[in-house]
């Protein structure tokens, strides 16, 4: 899944992107569509879009659980929480959102980049790719990150105890 034959990224750039996507920052020091193979985009970056959002959700949930459970040594199972966050929340939402995006004309393919001639007779390359599926979770994941930020009632409760 690399029709443009992109080569490997430099070590520092790859590390920067890896940390960025694990922390749900999603920042890249290069243009994704002109450096990353479709496989790396889907199996690496989009996967981590799901998993970093799911990790954030488990932290929010487990914090609430920690407040709720009094005098308890355990706070639940991380693997169960992260599975449920991905399976029942992120995957269905991303599926619906990506189908909606495709319906609105967002591209979703694994083709190579076609060349096009502009009205001024210039040559232009049009980036292709599985955009809709990646865009959906890309837009959803930061929303999850925002929604898992501790809110004011929680802060007040800590002070009271």
């Amino acid at each position: 899944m690399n029709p443009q034959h992109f080569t490997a990224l430099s070590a520092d750039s790859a590390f920067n992107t890896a940390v960025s996507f694990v922390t749900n920052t999603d920042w890249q020091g290069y243009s994704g569509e002109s450096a990353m193979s479709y496989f790396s985009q889907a199996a690496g970056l989009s996967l981590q879009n799901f998993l970093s959002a799911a990790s954030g959700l488990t932290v929010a949930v487990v914090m609430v659980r920690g407040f709720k459970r009094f005098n308890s040594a355990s706070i639940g199972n991380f693997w169960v929480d992260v599975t449920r966050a991905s399976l029942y929340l992120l995957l269905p939402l991303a599926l619906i959102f990506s189908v909606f995006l495709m319906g609105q004309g967002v591209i979703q393919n694994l083709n190579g980049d076609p060349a096009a001639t502009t009205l001024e007779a210039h040559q232009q390359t049009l980036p292709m790719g599985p955009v809709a599926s990646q865009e959906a979770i890309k837009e959803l994941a930061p929303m999850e990150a925002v929604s898992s930020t501790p809110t004011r009632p929680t802060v007040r409760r800590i002070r009271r105890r």
Partner: protein
Amino acid sequence: MEGEAHFAQRWGARFEARLYRLCGIDAAQEMTWLQYAGALLLFNLAGTLLIYALQRCNSGCR
């Protein structure tokens, strides 16, 4: 993510149970905060390594 089963959880329970069996996870096992934090960090460390490896092998490591 606890208490009464949500409607989606009732539908997905069998798939979920199969996933846990495949990954060798005991879903009923409770974790202490330290174990939970460790699992979270380990999970995200694995994610970091995966993305790093994928980008370094962007073209299939030829």
